[in-house]
């Protein structure tokens, strides 16, 4: 005896198909609503992301930016051999110094051992990996001994860091001696 059923033989199948169809329609609708508007404008990405990247704040200026406000340093720096050295390498990024046209904080001036460390980042002869013709190399403390100064001297006691040979040349001019050549 076949019992009586409330639903038809295929009710559940029709319902499943309907549910799947509704899910698909809702999915497609939601998808079109939440995809960012500029997505796909130029390629498979959000076109406005380029703007976001362009608007990233600039934190490092250039030497020109720094020197525009520091005329005295400018005179020295551009005339010396260190004119290609970045101000911000030693002092930090200009964005930490100037904001909205105003000075917001002083940048650190390196002192003592810090200066020596900075100088030796470029001038240390014992690293050996450097191309010889590029820059002047020295090895410490031989350099100090050779120049007949105390071996606890810091680099900036003889060399102006902005124009390394300035004081040396001035001293030579005043004293009137040629440096002894090896």
């Amino acid at each position, binding site marked *: 005896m076949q019992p009586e059923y409330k639903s038809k033989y295929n009710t559940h199948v029709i319902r499943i198909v309907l549910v799947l169809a509704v899910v698909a329609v809702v999915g497609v609708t939601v998808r079109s609503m939440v995809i960012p508007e500029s997505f796909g404008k130029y390629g498979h990405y959000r076109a406005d992301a380029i703007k976001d990247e*362009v608007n990233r704040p600039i934190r490092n200026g250039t030497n020109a930016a720094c020197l525009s406000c520091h005329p005295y340093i400018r005179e020295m720096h551009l005339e010396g051999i260190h004119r*290609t050295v970045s101000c911000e390498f030693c002092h930090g990024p200009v964005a930490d110094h100037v904001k909205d046209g105003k000075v917001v904080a002083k940048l650190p001036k390196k002192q003592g051992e810090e200066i020596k460390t900075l100088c030796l980042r470029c001038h240390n002869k014992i690293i050996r990996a450097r191309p010889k013709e590029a820059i002047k190399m020295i090895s410490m403390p031989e350099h100090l001994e050779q120049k007949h100064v105390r071996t606890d001297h810091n680099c900036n006691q003889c060399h102006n860091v902005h124009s390394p040979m300035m004081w040396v040349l001035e001293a030579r001019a005043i004293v009137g001696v040629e440096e002894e050549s090896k």
Partner: protein
Amino acid sequence: MMDAIQSEISRDRRAFIKKVLGGTIAGSLLLVIPAGAMDVPEQIPGMREQEGPFIKGKKFVFIVDITRCIGCGSCCVADKNEYQVPDGNYRTWVERYVIDDHDNVYVDSPNGGLDGYQKPRTDIPHPVRDTFFVPKLCNMCEKPSCVQVCPVGATYQTKDGFVLIDQKRCVACSYCVQACPYSVRFINPKTKTADKCTWCYHRVRKGLLPACVNVCPVQARKFGDVNDRNSEVYKILHQPHVVSVLKPGMGNKPSLHYVGLRREVV
């Protein structure tokens, strides 16, 4: 390029300083725009006239001259400052290669070269035959694997050839990190998104050179428009130097070129 700007500034230095000290830059907007808070002269001519979403008429390449690099790490410092890169992650780094007379190759890059190289390697038993530094950064591939694998379209290549990251769509699945043959990508622990060197796209679009190029004291890093036949990069790429790219077998076609690249460099 730097020289041109410098000579221009020197020519009328007094007037320039006066203007700056006066607090207003009345000079042409082409030369000086407020970039953030700073007044910075344009370094890449013509960039500030550019409008529209992409750079027109220019094709930028990056050249690293490893015969010049002194391993000072200025570039790494500038990069870290520009992007406030969290410690332990590197948008750019400098490697030191030491080759002894038995052809053993020793490579290191302590803290990515960020602190410079202050000490010689002491663990090399044989006499050293050759040493050099190799700066690394995004290769800005023409066929970037990272863009290919990004599942959500968060890493993309602009029509002007820059590979960038959409910080608002990246899910940080790290697939791009795995796919990059050069290991220039990392997951930024602050933003929790993928991150990498962009050749300072934001600076370039505002007419400034990449931060690392600006600070290099020996011009080991060069950036310019290869469509411009007078540019330094055009001349380098069209002269008989040893110019090569990293891992050419990967087929990524990098736009980052190396002058004086050695076979030991990977």
